[in-house]
């Protein structure tokens, strides 16, 4: 089982690398942020089909038939695990206060929150500072590179994809030794994540003319904002075509 998981991970990595080396099918209307668009669109529709048929129904069932306290506990548990990784990455970005707070969160929640099932750190003022390795690279100036849609994993960038093997190799769930528990934990985490996204994805499909580019543009902006901790350089205020003096005003 473990070997097959490894093989799964490796094949994802290989797909990514192959895409990166062969892709670049640029057309005349290619978006500079998305040279891999033709490939990405295929993967995205594969992901959508999988989501429609498996993941989303499972998440809806989970949301509707699991008691709310259980759902919250599950969420908190996995968030606590991810706070460990945030602590490391805040450290790698030399953010003293954030590192200390993240560490305190893990300690407080793991001890007083019973393995993280209760989030007791937030009410006492210890805020989350989610960071991952992709953000750490971005912090030190590594550009995100083109947009990539990974099979199963969804939206990503070349930079974030390149560190995925590392992220997985330090992941508590995928590294867990007891196979049955690991499988349960992996599936639960996935469903918890999907359930938390249900409203967002419903809204997304109503808001978008073209779901693919809407998702891409949201994701890239969102990710960039994360790298700059909510304060990206204010470089691109859009032009206002309606202000052109020659323009006939619509009002």
């Amino acid at each position: 089982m473990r070997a097959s998981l490894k093989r799964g991970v490796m094949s994802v990595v290989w797909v990514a690398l192959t895409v990166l080396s062969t892709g670049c099918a640029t057309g005349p209307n290619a978006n500079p942020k998305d040279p891999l668009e033709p490939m990405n669109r295929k993967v995205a529709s594969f992901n959508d089909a999988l989501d429609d048929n498996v993941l989303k129904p499972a998440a809806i069932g989970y949301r509707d038939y699991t008691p709310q306290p259980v759902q919250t506990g599950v969420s908190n548990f996995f968030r606590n695990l991810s706070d460990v990784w945030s602590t490391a990455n805040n450290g790698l970005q030399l953010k003293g206060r954030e590192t200390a707070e993240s560490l305190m969160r893990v300690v407080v929640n793991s001890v007083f929150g019973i393995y993280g099932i209760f989030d007791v750190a937030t009410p006492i003022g210890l805020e989350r500072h989610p960071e991952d390795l992709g953000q750490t690279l971005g912090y030190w100036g590594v550009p995100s590179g083109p947009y990539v849609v990974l099979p199963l994993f969804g939206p990503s960038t070349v930079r974030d994809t390149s560190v995925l093997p590392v992220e997985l190799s330090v992941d508590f769930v995928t590294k867990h030794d007891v196979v049955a528990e690991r499988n349960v934990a992996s599936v639960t985490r996935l469903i918890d994540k999907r359930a938390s996204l249900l409203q967002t994805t419903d809204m997304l499909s109503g808001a978008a003319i073209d779901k693919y580019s809407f998702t891409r543009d949201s994701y890239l902006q969102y990710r960039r904002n994360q790298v700059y901790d909510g304060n990206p350089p204010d470089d691109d205020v859009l032009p206002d075509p309606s202000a052109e003096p020659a323009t006939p005003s619509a009002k």
Partner: protein
Amino acid sequence: MNRCLSRRLFSVWALSAACVLGMTSTAHAVEEPADVFIKRVSGDILDAIKADKSIHSGDVNKIVVLVDQRVMPNVNFLRMTASAVGPGWRQATPEQQKRLQEEFKALLVRTYAGALGQVNDQTIVVKPLRAAADDKEVLVRTEVRGKGDPIQLDYRVEKAADGAGWKVYNLNVMGIWLVENYRSQFAQEINAKGVDGLIASLADRNKTNARTSK
């Protein structure tokens, strides 16, 4: 599915909608700073939504009324639509520009309508303004605080053309600017099918949304 785009994103979207929707049109003294403007209108809108059960349950007609009476006077929607449409805007006739605004507005209202029920105990914290007193365009940064982690919600505001107060022309939820997010989709449609094609796609989308929300 990116792990960090969580339920919070949704509720902030709801809230941002609320904030845009709720901006009351009180033309205050010219001197009102941009951050005070945002604080006032977002507070008003939150109160209005909390007070009205039918908005909470997503009554689209009620929401449209709220938008027209209280939101639109505080938003430069012409500018919002034009910059989302991009260079194609100048090729559009005045009639097409009018239709673009109508359909874009309908899309946003319809999209946000369902989200308004999420608004409950949140409060808005406006961050210190970093702008000179005579700036014509200002970035106002706020944070929505409720249950869970705080959510980033920023506005770009401009001095209104008549000099009376401010108007919002873009907003950002967790780093995602609304106008930017529609730009490449709109450009795509215009490149493929022209301005009328974009209008038709928007109208289609709105019809589909109207059906599914019934």
